């Protein structure tokens, strides 16, 4: 369970988030939408424990929360396989077991032939797939996604988004996801929240993932986004 009550975040005198109330139960998948600079990434970083809140209460009882960044953030001096295996070793797996799991996950994201490649040798899409494999290999019960597929081409974005959705649904993991692409977001989450001026506003959705109402939902989310960008 992730619970934020009257949470606030300030950078010096500047208020980034104010009076945030958000509750994420196990298995629940929530999308965060909003204009740039609204505080979405800060909210995710608070949830990941990378930032201390300035006020309010934050309770995170998830066993294994993992944040997947917008950039791959791979260790450039370790092979793709090591980049996936190291967090597993940090989580307590023996080296051989960690390598086996990493091997399996890299194969699942289509990188069978790039196990021993240095990150500098990988394309942007391949590096982001390594990053996704690294996040999912840990079997997180809470996955925090900060626009992880935004730099990828549409086909790959769709493929990785589907892989992510399948895995999260199979494990019944909770998900908190930022995306500027309503279609991508609606393929991953059960409900959406608008982040604007440091505050949260729920956006009601018409139907569950995969339902026909989601097409109308996508149009509505796009309109909401355009509206927020038009506002000062």
């Amino acid at each position: 369970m992730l619970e934020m009550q009257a949470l606030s975040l300030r950078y010096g005198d500047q208020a980034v988030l104010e009076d945030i109330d958000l509750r994420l139960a196990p298995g629940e998948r929530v999308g965060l939408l909003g204009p740039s600079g609204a505080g979405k990434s800060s909210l995710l970083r608070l949830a990941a424990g990378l930032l201390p809140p300035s006020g309010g209460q934050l309770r995170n009882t998830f066993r294994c929360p993992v944040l997947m960044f917008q950039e791959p953030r791979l260790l450039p001096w370790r092979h793709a396989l090591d980049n996936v295996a190291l967090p597993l070793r940090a989580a307590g797996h023996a080296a051989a077991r960690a390598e086996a799991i990493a091997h399996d996950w890299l194969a699942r994201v289509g990188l069978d032939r790039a196990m021993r490649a240095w990150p500098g040798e990988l394309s942007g899409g391949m590096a982001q797939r390594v990053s996704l494999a690294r996040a999912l290999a840990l079997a997180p019960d809470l996955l925090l996604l900060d626009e992880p597929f935004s730099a990828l081409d549409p086909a790959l974005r769709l493929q990785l988004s589907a892989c992510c959705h399948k895995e999260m649904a199979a494990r019944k993991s909770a998900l908190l996801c930022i995306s500027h692409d309503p279609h991508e977001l609606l393929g991953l989450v059960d409900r959406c929240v608008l982040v604007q001026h440091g505050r949260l506003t729920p956006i009601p959705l018409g139907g569950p993932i995969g339902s026909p109402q989601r097409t109308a939902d996508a149009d509505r989310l796009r309109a909401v986004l355009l509206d927020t960008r038009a506002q000062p």
Partner: protein
Amino acid sequence: MNTPRAGKGRTSRGWAAAGVLLLLLAWHVAARQLGPLLMATPWEALCAIGPLVSSDRFFAHAGLSLMRIGVGVLAGASIGFTLGVLAGHSTRLRGLIEPLRWLLMALPPVVVVVLAMLWFGLGSPMVVFITTLMMAPGMYVNTVKGMLHVDRQLVEMTHVYRYGAWLRLRHLYLPALSAPLLAALLIATCGGVRLVVMAEVLGAENGVGYALANARSTFDTAELFAWVLLILGLVAMLEFALLQPLQRRLGRWMEPSHA
């Protein structure tokens, strides 16, 4: 307009060999001018190496100096590195250590030698103490500088993936710091050899420096220069056979194979 050439960053071996020959020539001319009592020629020094190496005292002196260099450089590098990593994490500790770092770097080594002779007397503890004290600041400065330049995004990533202190040191900080650390280690090792020899010349009853001082006092110029050649050989071996291959090995990831 200059045309780019392959391997521009690498030192040309041919020119390096020409540089060595030029140095030997200058040495030979200088020795001819000064006479055999003041300076041996390169050939005389080379010929003196054989009898020197086969003498009983050679291995005792050389072994002792090598031990002092090894312990002194290792202790200095370890202390400098450990304090550098800690100070890289804490601005308070960095502020606390800064005056001592400045003091040690500004202090002429000969002053430390004289003081250490008073405190420890003649022998290994004095030499090792001086080497450690003089080597640590260089390693410390390079480590702190490297720590401050470690990619913050990667540091954050290791927090998200809950890397422990050992994994973070082994897989993030050490590889990220490998270039400045190896440069510092190179300087420390070469400097360490010179410092140990100087400390032994000034205040030891054994070791290469003592043998050098002994050869000087008996006007055995050929032996004195034979020792110099051996010291140069040791520094070259440490640099070319140990540190440079290590540097190449640790930098493999920067040269993608495009396989």
